[in-house]
């Protein structure tokens, strides 16, 4: 199979096309610009739709329209743009429409900077807009994983009729790594009998998130809740490194997990039994990864490019069974492997 050297943003775009994405609607923002640029070149050539919208708000609502019409559709943006899209994401979740939303996170709050950050964890995993809703969130840490998850993201979106977000960062988007586009066997996906395509040969289809009767709205919310619980039971993904014997675990995702992996190697060389838990889905959060190692885990160190967002989920997962420490760098600053290694030593020192 052909191996290509590609930037994360471009590899993601190519994967989306190969996964059958029919249309893209987006608005320019750094650092994800290569993604729409690639799609602008390639989509029309391959008979797909590319449209640069007038705003992130318009873009996500175009996604809503296209998803409601039954198309496989995506958008991409970065922190500030995702904030603007949150209203639309709430509507997509309320109306149960499938789509892929890519968030190549930058430093915040406000306009922040364009450096790699992970400070959108809350707005990705806690809904982010109004109402009780969740989006499935994938956090790849290599270009190959980015590509592989695009196929799954579209499929899970269709299976659960729910938006799926891929949460990346500037490094992942700009980084070049070898990538192979594996043709995966297509999953059996439910037919989109609910799509508004014109009512020929059937009754009227309506796409809406409005339930003025509180009894009906509650029923609708319970239905969504049941779906979210199914997703939590079935779709958690994670990777554990040195899970067999490690006592001190770093918990990190995305690019941070790569740096933490280097720190783990340093710790091992220094005789510390260190391991890594790398959540691949941030929602649903892989609590089982913690349960699996709890009998020998002495402490956990959460490492983030933010000031303590994922740590909430780590603490909920550990649930008081071991101490949880934190190390983070905000605003687009990236820690070195040495920084994390030092934190591992501190964790070991504090929890003997």
């Amino acid at each position, binding site marked *: 199979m052909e191996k290509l*050297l590609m930037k994360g943003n471009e590899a993601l775009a190519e994967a989306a096309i190969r996964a059958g994405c029919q249309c893209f609607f987006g608005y320019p923002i750094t650092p994800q610009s290569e993604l729409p640029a690639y799609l602008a070149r390639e989509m029309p050539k391959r008979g797909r739709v590319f449209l640069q919208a007038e705003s992130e708000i318009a873009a996500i609502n175009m996604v809503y329209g296209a998803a409601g019409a039954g198309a496989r559709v995506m958008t991409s943006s970065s922190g500030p743009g995702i904030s603007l899209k949150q209203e639309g994401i709430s509507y997509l979740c309320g109306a149960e429409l499938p789509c892929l939303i890519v968030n190549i996170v930058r430093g915040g709050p406000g306009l922040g900077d*364009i450096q790699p950050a992970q400070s959108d964890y809350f707005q990705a995993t806690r809904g982010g807009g109004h109402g009780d809703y969740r989006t499935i969130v994938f956090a790849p840490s290599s270009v190959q994983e980015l590509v592989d998850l695009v196929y799954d993201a579209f499929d899970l979106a269709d299976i659960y009729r729910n938006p799926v977000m891929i949460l990346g960062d500037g*490094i992942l988007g*700009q*980084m*070049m790594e070898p990538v192979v586009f594996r043709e995966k066997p297509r999953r059996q996906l439910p037919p989109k009998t609910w799509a508004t395509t014109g009512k020929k040969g059937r009754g009227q289809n309506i796409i809406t998130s409005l339930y003025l009767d509180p009894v009906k709205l509650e029923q609708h919310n319970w239905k969504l809740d049941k779906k979210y619980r199914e997703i939590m039971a079935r779709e958690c993904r994670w990777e554990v490194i040195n899970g067999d014997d490690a006592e001190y675990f770093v918990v990190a995702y995305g690019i941070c997990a*790569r*740096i933490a*992996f*280097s720190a783990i190697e340093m710790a091992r060389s220094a005789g510390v039994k260190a391991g890594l838990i790398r959540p691949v889905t941030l929602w649903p959060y892989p609590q089982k990864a913690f349960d699996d190692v709890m009998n020998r885990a002495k402490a956990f160190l959460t490492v983030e490019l933010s000031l303590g967002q994922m740590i909430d989920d780590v603490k909920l997962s550990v649930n008081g069974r071991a101490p949880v420490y934190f190390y983070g760098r905000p605003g687009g600053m990236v820690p070195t492997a040495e920084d994390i290694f030092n934190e591992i030593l501190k964790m070991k020192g504090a929890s003997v």
Partner: protein
Amino acid sequence: MKLETIMAGFGGQGIMLMGEILAHSAMMENKEVSWIPSYGPEMRGGTANCMVVISDRRIASPIISHPDVLVAMNKPSMEKFSPLVKPGGLIILNISMIDDRPARGDVDILEVDAGKIADALGNSKVANMVVLGALVGKTGIVDKKTVLNSIDCFLPSHRKSMYEINEKAFIKGLELMAGVTLKGVG
């Protein structure tokens, strides 16, 4: 085996391309590779750098704190990155643009008059290929043929006429390694 390289210089010196060709060559020889650029406000006009990691194992961090090899194409790059090079590492200097030398006695320093060599070949822009040749010649990290193939891959179709001069520049760099004296502890 793991080789971590930082390449740095002015925007326009072909720093990114040099890194991409190195990473691509290594990939073609079935090694694990990663390449990341510096980017952001300083992307145009200022210094540009990229980091290339080549390994026979899964690559952990693509971000390099202490490179095995530094390629410095101008003085600010040398000043910024030479203190970070691992003891026993290698610094390749484009002395056409650098009148100073790093204050390191614990690394190999390879001086390449890349700008001058490129000019002699007829295009100052291929200085990057001269340096790449020197790097490959010194480290042997990838095969010469693979690199020539990768150079061909990375030349855009409207620049294919440039292949020959890029090849020549790369070979010149390689040949420099025959009989060169390294300064430093080596």
